[in-house]
């Protein structure tokens, strides 16, 4: 890969060990994919995880004097103040998340602690070159917004944010953004959960690729698209998709395939969605908690939870959690949704991922969620996956099914 004089100097360590390490990572990726050069990016999102590998890298950058050259947001860890006030969490368990949070602050990342920054704090425009990691974030900015990012790992996105550049390969080129699979949707997509099932089913069928959806007649909502994006990267690895008529980059199916023929075609009817639901839903019986907000619930979804809980009380043996962004939590408080959920006995928590040590009190419990991604990374023992309204109903009744 060609490097400018400045880039060479960064790689030689003239700008400190932090920038040197970030540049080493970008050069390795560029060499692996035969990129000719680095190109400027305008923003990044680092899928920080609060785990040891993540801590090592971000502390190395911080100690090495690096800081973000372009706005770079962070993924959730957990709201330490909130959880430490209600659960026993040992100092040992809290050490890694605490150090991770401190190091991201030191490198001047935007401390969003949110996995959906692309609707609130970090929104690219059409055609912007960016580096976004996180399963729903990569396909959302590529497909819904039409910005350009590769499917980054947390650290490659962070390195790009530090240097302000990324190797030019893959989805930064238009010709690599064409569809690979034609997905004919004959199913009736009624709600957000139907999009969850659609994403899960399609990812399981194609694994890796760029699906082009036809047959979707009604404008999908932001929340439906977020779910589709997240589930396309739970059993699969799908960096982008097209829904001609609704997503921005291809107006027609022909445009989406850039004149080529699809590698493969699949059809999704109500039957496939029903079978997917039966495959993932889990057994009936006693459950102990509900966990919502993987990916983080939007303000609209928090409002919906408040509405469903209105005049009801969560069963006394039950825990009820909604994970959301700090922005949405603030507005939920202002609009009264937060107090409605809390009055019913639920928690609304910001900055928090479902895969963190703060959930250890539930390690032997059964949880219900509307997200297969939550179930896959869960910190509780058994999982039931079902629609939001069924989760709420189960929480009120104290059992499922």
């Amino acid at each position, binding site marked *: 890969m060609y490097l400018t004089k400045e880039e060479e100097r960064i790689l030689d360590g003239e700008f400190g060990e932090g920038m040197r*390490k970030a540049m*080493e*990572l970008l050069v*390795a*990726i560029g*060499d*692996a994919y035969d990129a000719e050069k680095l190109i400027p990016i305008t923003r990044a999102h680092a*899928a920080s*995880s609060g*785990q*040891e*590998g*993540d801590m*090592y*890298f971000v502390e190395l950058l911080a100690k090495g004097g690096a800081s973000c050259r372009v706005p770079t947001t962070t993924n959730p860890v957990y709201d330490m103040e909130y959880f430490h006030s209600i659960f026993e969490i040992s100092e040992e368990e809290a050490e890694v998340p605490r150090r991770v949070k401190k190091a991201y602050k030191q490198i001047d990342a935007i401390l969003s602690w949110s996995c959906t920054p692309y609707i609130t704090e970090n929104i690219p425009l059409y055609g912007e070159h960016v580096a976004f*990691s996180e399963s729903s974030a990569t396909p959302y900015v590529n497909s819904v917004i039409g910005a350009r990012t*590769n*499917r*980054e*790992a*947390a*650290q*490659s996105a962070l390195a790009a944010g530090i240097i302000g550049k990324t190797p030019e390969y893959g989805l930064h080129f238009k010709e690599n953004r064409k569809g690979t699979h034609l997905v004919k949707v004959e199913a009736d997509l009624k709600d957000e959960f139907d999009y969850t099932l659609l994403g899960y089913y399609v990812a399981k069928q194609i694994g890796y690729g760029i699906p082009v959806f036809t047959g979707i007649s009604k404008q999908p909502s932001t929340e439906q698209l977020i779910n589709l994006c997240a589930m396309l990267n739970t059993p699969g690895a799908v960096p982008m998709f097209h829904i001609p008529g609704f997503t921005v980059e291809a107006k027609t199916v022909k445009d989406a395939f850039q004149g080529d023929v699809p590698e493969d075609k699949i059809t999704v009817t109500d039957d496939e969605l029903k079978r997917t639901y039966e495959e993932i839903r889990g057994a009936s019986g006693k459950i102990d908690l509900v966990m919502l907000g993987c990916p983080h619930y939007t303000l609209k979804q928090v409002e919906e939870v408040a509405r469903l809980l209105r005049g009801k009380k969560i069963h006394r043996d039950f825990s009820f959690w909604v994970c959301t962004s700090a922005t949405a939590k603030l507005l939920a408080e202002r609009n009264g949704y937060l107090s409605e959920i809390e009055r019913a006995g639920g928690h609304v928590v910001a900055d928090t991922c479902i895969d963190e040590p703060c959930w250890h009190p539930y390690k032997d419990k059964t949880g219900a969620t509307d997200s297969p991604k939550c179930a896959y990374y869960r910190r509780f023992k058994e999982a039931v996956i079902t629609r939001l309204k069924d989760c709420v109903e189960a929480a009120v009744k104290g059992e499922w099914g």
Partner: protein
Amino acid sequence: MRSLEVTLKCHKIVGGYGEGEALISHEPICFYLTNPKTGIIREKGHELEGKSVANKVLIFPSGKASSVVQIDGLFKLASNGVAPKAMIVKDVETVLIVSAVIANVPLVDRLEKDPFHIIHTGDFVKVNADEGKVTVIKSS
């Protein structure tokens, strides 16, 4: 007994030098599914289940599994001094590259001959990623 030595060109991805006994896997590897203290692969049904990657030159087709666990897995092996000395792969992807950079393990691909034909478990292999060279010393 006479030892046979072959030097092959390769493509550097992560620089450095590492040498050790070759360990071949025809299946992709997830470093999270190894014992972080010993480097022994504990993935059920894996062809290398029960074998250790510690201080070996590991030859495998590609990595697998989510970015968080893969990176954390190789990093923990490296912090305990039981990571591979170098890695030779067929298909790279971003997660494996990031893992190798963070763990400081030299990583190369595109050997001029198929590594699965030329190298066998037990051979001694020197990987000079910086110079784009792999030297294989046959065990007999």
